[in-house]
């Protein structure tokens, strides 16, 4: 079974600080939406696979974010921990259209 994604408009690209993130509330858990130095947008579940730290509060560098609790570095594209740490947080498809940011959620 593969259900089509439901694309939800969450706001303007410019609402998200460059090298920063904003939070989006979702019934299945908070989502962190990141904007990188090269203006790409990524979305992950806002929970580090290590101790559930809020990734939306981490320092964004390259296409990665560092969890503020214990410095795990998470790849924004995959949600996978990098380096010696192992673990993965869910990632959510994102589109930017006409300056608006859309999250692809399972309907």
């Amino acid at each position: 079974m593969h259900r089509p994604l439901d694309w939800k408009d969450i706001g303007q690209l410019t609402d998200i600080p460059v090298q920063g993130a904003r939070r989006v509330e979702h019934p299945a858990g908070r989502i962190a939406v990141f904007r990188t130095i090269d203006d790409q947008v990524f979305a992950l579940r806002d929970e580090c696979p290590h101790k559930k730290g809020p990734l939306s509060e981490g320092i964004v560098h390259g296409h990665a974010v560092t969890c503020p609790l214990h410095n795990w570095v998470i790849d924004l594209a995959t949600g996978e921990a990098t380096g010696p740490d192992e673990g993965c947080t869910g990632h959510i498809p994102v589109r930017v259209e006409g300056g608006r940011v859309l999250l692809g959620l399972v309907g």
Partner: protein
Amino acid sequence: MTTNHSSPPDGAPKPRLVVIGNGMAGIRAVEELLDRAPGLYDISVFGAEPRVNYNRIMLSPLLSGEKTFDQIVINDRDWYSDNGITLYAGDAVEMIDRQRQVVIATSGLECPYDRLLIATGSMPIVIPIPGARLPGVVTFRDVDDVDAMLAASAKGGHAVVIGGGLLGLEAAVGLKARGMDVTVLHLAGHLMERQLDASAGHLLAKELERRGLSVLTAADTAAILGESHVTGVALKDGRELPADLVVMAVGIRPDTRLAAAAGLEVGRGILVDDHMVTNDPAIMAVGECVQHRGSCYGLVQPLFEMAKVLADHLAGRKGAGYAGSVTSTKLKVTGVDVFSAGDFSGGPGTEDIVFRDAGRGIYKRIVLEEGRIKGAVLYGDTGDGGWYFQLLKAGEDVSPLRDTLIFGQGFAPSEGGAANPTAAVAALPDTAEICGCNGVCKGTIVKAINEKGLTTLDAVKACTKASASCGSCTGLVEGLLAHTLGGDYQAAGVKPMCKCTDHDHDSVRRLIRVQGLKSIPDVMQALEWKTPDGCHSCRPALNYYLLASWPGEYVDHAASRFVNERVHANIQKDGTYSVVPRMWGGLTNASELRAIADVVEKFDIPTVKVTGGQRIDLLGVKKDDLPAVWADLNAAGMVSGHAYGKSLRTVKTCVGSDWCRFGTQKSLEVGVNLERMTWGSWTPHKFKMAVSGCPRNCAEATIKDFGVIATDGGFDLLVGGNGGIKLRGTDLLAKVTTEEEVQEYCAAFMQLYREEAHYLERTAPWIERVGLDFVKARVVDDAENRRALHERFLASQRHAQVDPWAERAPGTAAAARDFRTLATVE
């Protein structure tokens, strides 16, 4: 019982493995089993302690404060659930019913087993003397014992440690670090007589005495004195010592109670064969509770060896079995290096090679028998302990090495002419054990370095567990990194800021000033950064260096700040924040307290706590509430306390001559004025101050970054203290007579620290690195330079003293952008 998590595909239930004991041996056996055959058993673990599995050999650092409990946890609760293990923590097994194959716990719970593993460890020996059960008498075995010692040490006073072996000395040094007067009583003629010979024991006693401990050898305890609580200790020779706390650390005895009651064969320990099986084939035992070929063990390395053998057995692999262990020991007391291995009692047929260097406090003794190493004792320089131990275990003929043996591996003739530590490690075979605690050999570490691309000690620890327990093999692991990576490994010394650059901190700071670099992208471009926008390590450092170099000109870069400094509150483990309003010099009043109380009720703040720096901490504030909380506190006249920043934290004071009958100066006023001058300043790391009104020093100024102690004639100015992980008392910077001088010296010292220290370097390690003379030359001896530093500090403060809370008041763009949720979706 509901321990069945899943069944094998054929539908047959899995055999049930019950483990009695949630300690190091039992859980290591389970880990080894999961490695070999995950999912083979349905596993339940019973632990008498109400907590997860932790590293018991780290109790000493826990006591001394070098580690926290979280740092010594081996497996958290997720590990148990992830591996389908049912943990009964705090529910001890009371009885084993071998007929019905069930264990019965204190709660009445019955748990059936197909295989039973007893890992009950050992019990501390309590010597049967009068008063041995008085309140205030503790043993040193688990976290509860450490808690009891910490509670006792908080009141200060005298501690008497009975037993000068490994455990007793670690307890004694830990209690000393916690501020108690400590006396060690030891029955034998010298300390650690089971591990050390008399010479090394003597050197050790001298070192401990130099650190302020009292050591009494040949001291036989007659009684512990006291009515409702311990008050002293009486010796058989008639001496009496005062005591508020007595620690009994005279040894351990295998805990065989359950096994004996169940009718298993028991000697000193539970009798097991080479596969760790008792006389009941369904029951195995492992760890300190067992007796194998006549030996009981109380060290971690044999336990781990047993765990491997047991896991082979449980997984159905027939290995060679356990043949007993040759052990080595190391004292885990920071700065005291003691190593011993094998049998060093000497005697007929043995020869000694001894090396002494009195000036450096080094003593080494190797005991040889028929050309082979039989034992080794090292004091003061234990770097070659692992090598000697390797030669000892291998039973190698060391006659060809004899001439240089005592100087260590670096001098040993070898094919490559090895004469340095890296070459020495290179010469080891792949099977050589590097980490004794965790049984990790050289080959495993080298493979991990190569295959996983490891470049740092921490990465090796994380991947292989080597040097992750007691840490005594750290040097060897670093040697392996250097050998395996060659020029790519940057050992301690001059090292790059992070993997994004080849420049070290000093060179980055210098080039920022010399080249006039004024933004993070400028720095990264000019200094050829290797990543597009740095990392979590270099970006905050660059932001600080730019801020400190170009005050008023550089615009702070929020995205390069750690979350706490970005949202001006302290992130907690659950993602909420703590808020600490500034209370100048620790002074407050009714209206501030009323406003705080109102905020706590209005925002339903769960925890209110007084901090060590004399402030009030509001814990558990939701991020969305922060601007509104601050607005209410601002309205009552309070500003941010910067309790979250690499910045001036607090100025702690005593009441001084305003109220105290001993006070000699107005310490309150001096403290408040210092805080008014320095608040809001960003520093390389947090910066704490204190002002005491007399030499009794109630404000604890001697463990602050900058401390002031008032005297009759003026003020002593103290720098570089730290009460954290590594205790460091302050150095005396200068004695001055007026409050104006206190202010000028303080500002000058802070500015020098701001301009010179590396990011995230506290004043204590900074002064250790550059030397007190470096600081004195610039702040004390050179008055003109002092005035210039003072002036630069005040200039920087003109831009820094803006309340960040007010800047983010509700309704501002900053509050909306930085604190509000972007959207809510269904």
